């Protein structure tokens, strides 16, 4: 009986089709196995990135206002997801858009999001103290030099550009804060 069924299947689909089906099933199994063994959040904690304190104090507030609106990077489906008071709120907290100030978890998530956008290039930026910052997607997309759905966000050396570059270049907190504050002002 079992042999009859096998022969019927072979007759209906042919050996090549069965072989292709076998490859497909093996591939799907492999995909599932791979997905189940993805690196957990704990494994992503170590990454190279400039000063987190300067980012959370100055750069994140600028990115939240300029990039993190609900129609841009404040969408859960977009790369470089940005959380913030006026945009998307972190799903594990019960805050609403426009509600309480950006939380520590959201600031840390923004840092992780920006730092891991382009990890190899960011490692290089950390190694050379920011001299290769103009190679980062973060910088080039904002400058409109890389394809960016939101278009050109900053001009070279304007306050928004200097806000991001100052942080990437390990500038002191006060210098970065001054640029970021100047960049935020027209967005209010």
């Amino acid at each position: 009986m079992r042999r009859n069924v096998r022969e019927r299947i072979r007759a209906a689909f042919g050996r090549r089709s069965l072989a292709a089906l076998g490859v497909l099933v093996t591939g799907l199994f492999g995909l599932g196995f791979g997905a189940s063994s993805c690196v957990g959040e704990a494994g992503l904690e170590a990454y190279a990135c400039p000063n987190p304190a300067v980012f959370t104090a100055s750069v994140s507030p600028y990115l939240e206002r300029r990039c993190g609106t609900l129609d841009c990077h404040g969408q859960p489906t977009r790369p470089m997801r940005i959380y913030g008071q006026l945009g998307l709120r972190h799903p594990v907290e019960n805050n609403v858009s426009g509600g309480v100030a950006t939380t520590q978890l959201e600031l840390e998530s923004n840092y992780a999001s920006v730092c891991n956008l382009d990890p190899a290039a960011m490692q290089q930026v950390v190694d050379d103290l920011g001299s290769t910052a103009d190679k980062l997607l973060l910088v080039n997309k904002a400058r409109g030099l890389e394809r960016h759905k939101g278009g050109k966000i900053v001009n070279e050396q304007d306050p928004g550009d200097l806000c991001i570059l100052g942080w990437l270049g390990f500038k002191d907190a006060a210098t970065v804060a001054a640029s970021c504050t100047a960049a935020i002002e027209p967005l209010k």
Partner: protein
Amino acid sequence: MVPVSSGRFFAALSFAVALSSLGAVGCNGNDPIPQEVIDGLPAESGSPSALHRPGQPCLSCHSTYGEAAPAFAIAGTVYKETAMGALAAAPNVKVEIFDSAGPSRFACTNAAGNFYIEKDKWSDLTFPLKVRAGQRSMNSIIGREGSCGACHKLPSDDRPGNGAGHDSAGVVLVDDGDTDPICGGGAP
């Protein structure tokens, strides 16, 4: 009929399906992201008019993709809260839009609270935008979305009250009586 092995038949069929899918991606009705929004909208009650579908993301349909006429540059719905705390349409409200390139323009809300500016009448609209509805200005900029309802979502089970949630700023609200004579209302 020329006999074809089932393996070749399946290969040919797969190729044809892949080819037709590829063609379909470029056609209206087959872009999954806007189509999902359109498919998620409630059924039309009554017939389409300037008063229909208040609070919904207008440009999902009134756009090049959605093909509903007229196409809009920007459109939305403005609400007020009644003494009982319920949401009600806010007619005769002046909605002023400031784009990044030129002078501001305005539209007036109708009896349903809906307002719109047709795409033909503002073809060079340049994002980001700032908006003021009545006496209230938006706290954030608009990055690239012409539908207010895409971010200012209507209340739902998980977003009670005015619709504010982790991914929604809630409906656009003005104070009761915040109308403008230029829009047929009382004194501002």
